[in-house]
């Protein structure tokens, strides 16, 4: 009993345990459902899986199944990000626990019952439980937003001169507090008020200054808050039309109606929802990575206001598609996307600079090659921002190119070609977000030495190979005709299958290792249970 209790407590009450469960669930679902399409379907594996698992595949319900499949994976990713946020940022214990309980129960219900409903016959109780799961995640989002309130005096940052923020406050006894009652937090970054468990150590002085307003509002926290708030609002843009279409089961995939000039408000809402949710997940993981790496200094001070501004404008543009602003919504979206992407670029510049600086600190005058070696020395810290850069090739670059050349090139091709580009580029973005999570996960589970190098570089090499091939596949009509494409398609498919296949194998190896570790009385899990993410920031 003690054995089960201790493991259960690790898996469902600690940050790293919760993340492990969610990663394992995604890995399992991806491995099984990945066999239903693409080359696996061509090889006949799909039929075997369908029969072996007793799936009930109705042709007319494919779009509905896919919508539930996407949601079940996305909810687990949102849960992982939420665990990271609640592990990295200071918040009241009640909120931390409530958010985690709600989102854990929510995503597990959405995943298990959603997939049960979609693929294993229509058990309507399952459908109800799936919707309940999504609702719980929504409420977790509402609570998280409240918990992140940046105006709360408890979370204000001290001014760089060490004085407490907010006028009345004096520095806390350890010199890092920020007014209020001046109670220091246990580990650092004291914030007054209730003596919050804020282990971040983001004090003032030295290089350690962060983006803040004059009154001490933590702009990084404000960026997290803005992203959480807009995510909750944007979820409504999916929930309302989801109920509208779902009640009659007139489900559709947005990429299939993209060329129709007349769309209903509900259809626009769905299109806006799917775009903004993925963008917000990407913005949130950028903020998380910044916090993990302890993003600070001048670049931080410039990036955070841009992140907030970009996030708000981007959302306003997307929400605008269901208003009379629809004709100019895309323009607003571009205006919003630019500062968001600039903020990510600033994180990249700062983090690469730091990696180089830290890695060449022992050298008086490092050469270019020595700097390069320092930059790539730790693939887990280099990987996230590298992937953000790579994303410009697979997603942003493609998107901008398509937008510029839509009428001249892409709309002259069949709609199915355009669909390949649309679905390809957002699948690539999703995969990139997943790899960034895996980099951070690799660090938080304490991978060291050769294993860390192999794990990190395998993720970079395998995912970039696969996603690079996906990008060429999407754009192949630019340089090869349909009649001549097969050998090129074959090569690209090999690259995609090799990259994604071995990436999944790598993930499976990690998951098996973690499973075995759970059986050890003094396994790594016991260490992980004792440390919160915030304690490990920028180690």
């Amino acid at each position: 009993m003690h054995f089960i209790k201790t493991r259960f407590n690790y898996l469902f009450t600690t940050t790293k345990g919760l993340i492990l469960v969610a990663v394992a669930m995604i890995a399992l679902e991806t491995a099984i459902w990945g066999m239903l399409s693409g080359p696996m379907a061509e090889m006949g594996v799909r039929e075997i899986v369908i029969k072996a698992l007793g799936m009930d595949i109705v042709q007319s319900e494919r779009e509905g199944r896919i919508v539930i499949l996407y949601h079940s994976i996305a909810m687990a990713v949102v849960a992982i990000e939420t665990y990271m946020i609640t592990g990295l940022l200071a918040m009241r214990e009640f909120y931390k626990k409530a958010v985690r309980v709600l989102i854990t129960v929510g995503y597990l219900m959405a995943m298990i019952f959603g997939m049960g409903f979609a693929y294993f016959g229509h058990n309507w109780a399952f459908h109800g439980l799936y919707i309940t799961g999504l609702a719980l995640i929504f409420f977790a989002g509402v609570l998280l937003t409240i918990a992140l309130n940046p105006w709360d005096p408890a979370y204000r940052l001290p001014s760089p001169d060490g004085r407490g923020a907010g006028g009345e406050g004096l520095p806390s006894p350890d010199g890092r507090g920020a007014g209020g009652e001046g109670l220091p937090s246990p580990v650092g970054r004291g914030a007054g008020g209730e003596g919050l468990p804020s282990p971040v150590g983001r004090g003032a002085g030295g290089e350690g200054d962060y983006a803040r307003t004059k009154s001490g509002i933590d702009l990084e926290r404000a960026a997290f808050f803005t992203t959480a708030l807009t995510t909750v609002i944007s979820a409504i843009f999916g929930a309302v039309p989801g109920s509208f279409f779902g009640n009659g089961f007139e489900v559709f995939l947005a990429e299939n109606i993209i060329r129709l000039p007349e769309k209903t408000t509900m259809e626009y809402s769905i299109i806006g929802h799917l775009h903004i949710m993925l963008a917000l997940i990407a913005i949130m993981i950028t903020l998380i990575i910044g916090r993990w790496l302890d993003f600070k200094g001048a670049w931080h001070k410039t990036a955070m206001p841009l992140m907030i501004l970009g996030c708000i404008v981007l959302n306003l543009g997307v929400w605008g598609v269901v208003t009379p602003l629809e004709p100019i919504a895309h323009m607003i979206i571009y205006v919003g996307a630019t500062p968001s992407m600039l903020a990510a670029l600033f994180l990249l510049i700062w983090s690469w600079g730091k990696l180089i600086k830290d890695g060449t600190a022992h050298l008086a005058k490092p050469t270019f090659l020595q700097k390069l070696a320092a930059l790539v020395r730790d693939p887990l810290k280099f990987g996230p921002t590298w992937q953000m850069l790579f994303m410009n090739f697979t997603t942003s670059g493609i998107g901008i190119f398509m937008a510029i050349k839509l009428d001249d090139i892409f709309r002259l091709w069949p709609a199915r070609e355009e669909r390949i580009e649309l679905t390809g580029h957002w699948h690539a973005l999703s995969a990139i977000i997943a790899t960034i999570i895996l980099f951070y996960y690799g660090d938080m589970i304490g991978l060291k030495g050769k294993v860390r190098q192999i794990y990190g570089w395998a993720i970079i090499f395998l995912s970039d190979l696969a996603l690079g091939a996906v990008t060429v596949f999407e754009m192949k009509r630019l340089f090869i005709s349909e009649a001549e494409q097969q050998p090129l398609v074959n090569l690209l498919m090999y690259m995609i299958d090799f990259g994604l296949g071995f990436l999944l194998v790598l993930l499976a190896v990690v998951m098996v290792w973690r499973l075995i570790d759970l059986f050890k009385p003094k396994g790594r899990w016991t260490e992980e249970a004792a440390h919160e993410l915030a304690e490990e920031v920028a180690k």
Partner: protein
Amino acid sequence: MKRIILTLGLLAALLASCAPVDLNPPVPVYDTGVDPNAWVQIPAGEFYFGQHNEVAYTDAYEIMVTDVTVAQYVDFLNAALADGTVKISGEYVVGFYPGDPFHGKKHEIRIDPGDYLFVPLNDPASRFTFDGQRFAVRPGWENHPMTNVSWFGAWGYCGYYGWRLPTELEWQKAARGSDTRPFPWGDEITRQHANFYASRDPFEDMSSYGSLTTPVGFYNGNTYDGFQTVNAASPYGLYDMAGNVWQWVGDVQPQEGFSDRLMHGGSRNTYDMDLRIWVRNSAPPMYYGPAVGFRCGR
């Protein structure tokens, strides 16, 4: 040594991917026994339209049992060239089209009255040749569906004989009959039902030219050199309403400002999900491709 082998292997794979593909490879010749000149009567009445089974109505009409074949289209080109209905313009065969209404909507293409591309002349993927005087079928492709034909070319062919392209409603009714089946033959699809991507028919070599067209009416229950097919006719007896080639339908601007033309049926080059009756594809009317054909209605 290992690195050299790996590098050489990768180079070989890259070179193989760039190797030219024989776009007109020798293909087996089969007589399917299905007459491409046959028509079938579809009665007036309601049917289930689209994925969500909306009840729709059509008047009675006739529709071709198969796609228009290369041989049929070549006959048309020779006759139409002789009487001036079509003419050669540079690298294309063109014909007159009276134009579409233009609303100035975003992404809308202006199509004024004028001559438009019917088929390209020298596309290596085309199944016909032109010697400057006469069009001829490339040997072996006579009873394959006509491809590399634009919507204008399909519209021109049907109109030349006093027919027309079927509307989307008519096409779906002919494919589906009176129930809600996803495929013309029923609920499930196997490799014996239709020609789709990696369906392993005798006209497919995924290591070089990929999936080619099959003769019209190929999936009729016959066995071809050991390849057993299922009779995949629709309830009204139409063949190839799923797979082989996308089929242009006749609707012009089903939505104001939508200048694309719709296609249905999926093709030899798409996954089976695109073979479901309601799945739409579309392209501008001047588009032509090696996996797009048509049939006529009247």
